[in-house]
């Protein structure tokens, strides 16, 4: 068939669509609504997931982490990056920061010890941070209820820990820890601030020190760190950035492992994947329902026009060609509905994005898999879900047209013309 013939089928389908405007409007609006609903549902779901992933990765861990191969799972103080000699932290940070998509790089050092004040002593994780860089990866710096990040010879502690040992900003805290050389490190540190992440363990058993201070305390060289946490511009797309970082830092020291959050927060990743699967199910159900309505309309529309189809058959049009008109019609209906749906959905999504729906009234605060979640529904922009909805919508149009098309293709022309 040449272009002209193809044209005429589309033209006929398109014109047929507008012969019964009310019907087309009704049907298209059902489909549009389905699209809006599916987009909104998925957007909300994505918003929730985004929130979860953000909370899961932006509070402390970052979206990418680099460790020495041997560091995990034991997290021994001795398994620093680059082994006992350590590495050039400045160079490592610079290389990581230079990668596309990286928004922050924070080196970290960990040690286990005691924090004590007065008669009270608790076990704690001593975390060495770069106060300049840390805020670009984690939230510690922004959640101080009092004071600030630690400077040299200072320590910042979580609110629950501060409560437990009765310590306030300006007080002195005793820190004791087994140092890297086997000695028992001990010292007095001024409390520079108290933070509250609202995240279980970090508020009751973490103490933050300036990197150099902790390295000295634990008798470790300046080149020795346990972890580099990296934040990226697009949280959900950390994997390719992680790959770039891995390649870039590989030359600096052997045995470095670079992992995105989908690896080191495997369960979170699973839940997010599960939610994506649920999105597809939702779309499937919504459009599955819509198929009934559209198929119904299409059946009726083709029944009304069966005489025309019979004439076309009589003139020598093949059944397949006629069926195709109906399928085109379904597709065009889908396109119209999609245009209307998109015109409705995108402003709506943008509105909810800008004005999240606050649920705190009836759920209170919410913490999920160790990450605090703001009790609000928001939507995240994403290409994938509207695309899935759009494809589902067009698919609905086509699938709905299949039965009517099949019937049209099998129309007995003489009987129809004879009204038999």
């Amino acid at each position: 068939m040449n272009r002209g013939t193809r044209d005429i089928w589309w033209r006929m389908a398109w014109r047929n669509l507008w012969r019964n405007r009310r019907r087309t409007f009704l049907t298209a609006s059902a489909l549009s609504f389905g699209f809006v609903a599916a987009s909104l549902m998925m957007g909300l779901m994505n918003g929730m997931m985004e929130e979860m992933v953000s909370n899961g990765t932006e509070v402390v861990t970052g979206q990418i982490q680099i460790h020495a191969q041997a560091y995990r799972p034991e997290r021994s103080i001795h398994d620093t990056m680059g082994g006992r000699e350590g590495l050039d932290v400045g160079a490592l940070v610079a290389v990581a920061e230079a990668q596309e998509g990286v928004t922050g790089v924070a080196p970290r050092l960990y040690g286990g010890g005691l924090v004590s004040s007065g008669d009270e002593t608790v076990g704690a994780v001593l975390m060495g941070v770069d106060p300049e860089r840390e805020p670009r990866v984690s939230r510690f710096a922004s959640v101080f209820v009092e004071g600030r990040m630690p400077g040299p010879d200072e320590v910042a502690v979580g609110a629950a820990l501060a409560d437990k040992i009765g310590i306030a900003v300006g007080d002195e805290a005793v820190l004791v820890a087994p140092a890297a050389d086997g000695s028992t490190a001990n010292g007095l540190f001024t409390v520079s601030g108290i933070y509250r992440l609202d995240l279980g363990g970090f508020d009751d058993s973490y103490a933050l020190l300036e990197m150099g201070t902790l390295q000295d305390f634990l008798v470790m060289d300046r080149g020795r760190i346990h972890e580099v946490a990296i934040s990226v511009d697009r949280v959900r797309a950390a994997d390719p950035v992680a790959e770039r970082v891995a390649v870039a830092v590989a030359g600096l020291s052997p045995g470095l492992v670079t992992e995105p959050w989908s690896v080191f927060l495997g369960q979170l990743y699973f839940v997010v994947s599960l939610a994506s699967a649920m999105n597809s199910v939702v779309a499937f159900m919504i459009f599955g329902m819509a198929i009934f309505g559209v198929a119904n309309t299409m059946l009726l529309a083709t029944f009304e026009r069966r005489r025309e189809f019979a004439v076309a058959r009589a003139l020598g049009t093949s059944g397949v060609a006629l069926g195709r008109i109906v399928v085109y019609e379904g597709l065009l209906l889908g396109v119209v509905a999609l245009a209307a749906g998109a015109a409705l959905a995108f402003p709506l999504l943008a509105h909810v994005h800008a004005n999240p729906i606050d649920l705190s009234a009836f759920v209170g605060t919410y913490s999920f898999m160790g990450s605090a979640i703001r009790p609000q529904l928001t939507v995240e922009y994403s290409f994938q879900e509207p695309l899935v909805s759009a494809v589902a919508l067009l698919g609905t149009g086509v699938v709905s047209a299949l039965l009517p098309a099949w019937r049209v293709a099998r129309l007995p022309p003489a009987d129809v013309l004879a009204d038999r």
Partner: protein
Amino acid sequence: MKKAAIRFILSGTLLATGPVLAAAPTAAQTPSEILEIIDDVDRMMQGASSAGSMRMEIDTEHWSRSLEMQVWSLGTDYSLIRVQSPAREAGTATLKVENEVWNYLPRADRTIKIPPSMMLGSWMGSHVTNDDLVKESRLVEDYDIVISYEGDRDGEDVWEFTMTPRPEAPVIWGRIEQRIRKRDRMPLWARYYDDDGTLARTMTFSDIRTMGGRTVPTRIAIEPADGEERTVITYVEIEFDVGLDEDFFSLRNLRARQ
């Protein structure tokens, strides 16, 4: 894992008593012969005070170091240990009073009480935990002891005791074996087995000499069965019956006495 060992170190009684048998008179199923040996030891121990100095050498996978310490003890309940060198840790001190352990931290000039959650942490980086310091597991109470061998070993007339925990004794070992030299009742080694009968730790006593007027093993090596690590404690000098009383083992002395 290192419970029994520590009693020798902290109480100083190993110097007087030799074996692990700080006894209580309640033994039930242990043969009277052994109980007599234990009673002997017990009598020697009553009110025994000591003062001395020791060296602790620790070898681990990641580092090795050596500490010089002064030790005071009174019976099994009280002990005070102060680090003299290396300089970085000089003044660090540990006070044990019955079930509690305190540390003095010279840099911070503070004393802290070890919280329950940290009791299983290492003491001074050695293969000894804080919990070991307080664990007054009385072997006779917790274990049934039998003489599993008596006679000549490597030219010495020895007893070999096998201790199996009583059914309800709150101890982790499945079995402890100990060899004791008959002539002076000096321990030669103690071996600790887990529940499956696998050797978990060995304590070796050696360099048995007369020091401070008594015959004592002056070198104790503690070696976990897995790996190359070890802690070796060597007595440099020790005096007995130095006239300490309970007041000496105070928090004030922990931080002040140099």
